[in-house]
């Protein structure tokens, strides 16, 4: 009897492996191999070479696109923070009904297909749209073109990504124990000092979460910059698309894709070391 029990306890548990096998096979075949394929193409298209990376890393056009992408992502993140932080703060300070209403509106935007939102900005900023119409109405004869500029794509990306920032910051702000604020006040902190020494550090995780999320998504953003941005000021993802679809330059496209992937992974890894990725994804 005892021997049987001991044997049962020692038997390695095969269940988890059995349950994981289908997914593992799927991910190997339809995730890892396609990714490896990108790496492979970046070194072998059109023939075994390092030229793709050389071209992509040193070519003036490519460098401009990389710089432009980073600058745009940073700008979008900053503006999202500027819009999101006060709004999230306002939500924590308003009545539960108002907070609920704002949250519902933000969620609504969040769940609305980004193509719909991109289209909406096309209407808003178009030459016969309401903003140009308004500018004409107040007497500006030659209003600037807004559409297909860096301005239009940045604005639309801010609109599309702001909900992530707002939700991340709000979820952190909401959990702050009011006792902490009250005890800080009782200890003499007020106004700017209270914000800088107590509130800001307490909300920092939300800011970090939201910013990393927005920044990383922005780096790889394809659709909105392609549809609303200036063709002369492409971002990485858009340029990858052009290389592949128009020039059939799989090697250069793949090399850029790999660089984009590495940058994304580096940012996420640094973030993971610092805060833990599981927090970013819930």
């Amino acid at each position, binding site marked *: *009897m*005892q021997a049987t*029990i001991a044997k*049962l*306890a020692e038997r390695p548990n095969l269940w988890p492996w059995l349950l994981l096998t289908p997914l593992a096979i799927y991910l190997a075949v339809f995730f890892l191999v396609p990714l490896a394929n990108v790496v492979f193409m970046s070194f072998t298209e059109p023939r075994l070479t390092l030229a793709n990376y050389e071209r992509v890393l040193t070519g003036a056009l490519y460098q401009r696109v990389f710089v432009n992408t980073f600058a745009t992502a940073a700008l979008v993140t900053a503006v999202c923070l500027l819009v999101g932080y006060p709004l999230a703060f306002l939500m924590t300070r308003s009545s539960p009904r108002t907070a609920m209403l704002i949250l519902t509106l933000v969620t609504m935007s969040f769940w609305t297909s980004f193509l719909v939102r991109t289209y909406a900005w096309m209407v808003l900023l178009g030459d016969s749209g309401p903003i140009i119409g308004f500018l004409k109405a107040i007497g500006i004869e030659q209003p600037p073109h807004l559409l297909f500029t860096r301005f239009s794509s940045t604005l639309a990306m801010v609109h599309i990504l702001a909900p992530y920032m707002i939700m991340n910051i709000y979820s952190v702000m909401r959990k702050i124990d009011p006792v902490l604020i009250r005890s800080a006040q009782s200890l003499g902190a007020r106004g700017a000092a209270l914000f800088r020494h107590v509130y800001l550090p307490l909300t920092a995780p939300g800011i970090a979460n939201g910013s990393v999320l927005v920044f990383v998504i922005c780096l790889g953003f394809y659709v909105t910059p392609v549809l609303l941005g200036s063709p002369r000021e492409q971002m990485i993802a858009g340029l990858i698309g052009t290389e592949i679809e128009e020039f059939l330059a799989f090697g250069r496209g793949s090399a850029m894709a790999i660089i984009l992937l590495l940058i994304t992974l580096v940012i996420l890894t640094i973030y993971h070391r610092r805060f833990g990725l599981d927090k970013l994804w819930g």
Partner: protein
Amino acid sequence: MTSYLRLTDVSKIYGTVTALSKIDLTAEKGEFVTFLGPSGSGKTTTLMIVAGFEKATTGDVMIDGRSISAMAPHERNIGIVFQNYGLFPHKTARENVYFPLQMRGQAKAQGLRKAAEMLDLVGLKDLGDRYPKEMSGGQQQRVALARALVFEPSLLLLDEPLGALDKNLREQMQIEIKRIQRALGVTTVFVTHDQSEAMSMSDRIVVFDKGRIEQAATPLDIYHRPQTKFVAGFVGESNLVEATVTDAAAGKADAAELGQCDYKPDAALKNGQAVTLLIRPEHIKLSRQPLEGRKNVRIKVDTIVNYGDNALLMGHTEKRTLRCRVLGADIVIIKEGDECHLSWLPDAVVPIAG
């Protein structure tokens, strides 16, 4: 005759950690046995081994002469009330109680009737259609009890079921559980870390510490004749004094901190043996002057904690502190900082070997 429930040489080892070390224990049919011990003492592990949710590393569990070690939990026919009750949130109270009958293939109409009867027995006659979240903690507790008993289990296990209830409800449920247990005559194992609960409910208490059984005895024996220092310290309040036996026949020992102490002679002790003397605080008397025929110790009072009907007094001699419990009326004239005498009879001193 063999016991109804018997654990032989049961151990549980997780990697290098021994959670349970060679447990032997028995329970008779209809007996109410309590596993008492601090958290991590192995009492819940033992319970889970009996239930079949943990596999013992060594040893065997038998019910009514048959080994159940190789059985899956659902084959064991053991009713369990879990710490948080484990009521199914998607089923009503009656459906919860019907569940074990459903699993045993009982017809629905008959099973639901039986479930209703059982709910009646635990005092929830009209609440059968409620969902667990619509019930109070005490009511959920009763549903869990009804569910664990409705299929006439061979054994009832209660895993700290009263922990989540407030004090008044707790006492009420203690009485209720005893009543139902007696009415059905079901052999019961109750796990708790609350000694007063163990004292008031059990036929027998098994005290666990660090994966071992320290003592298994009736509540009165556990309290008045603890066999180990741990039991003496864990159950009830105590003054524990290290001493050496000087005259085993007459019951005399020498304590470094209190001088010579007389105790109730114990044949098992020998001269020169190291012992721990247990003196319960309620057996100590407080007086201004030394009292005749008792061991007297002069102390200075440090703290008095008043509970109304009684008070706890803590004071110190030159070498150690002592605590004593006195009736509320006696304490009125004593103040913190006063000097007075504590005294006790030799019969109040219980020697514990080792």
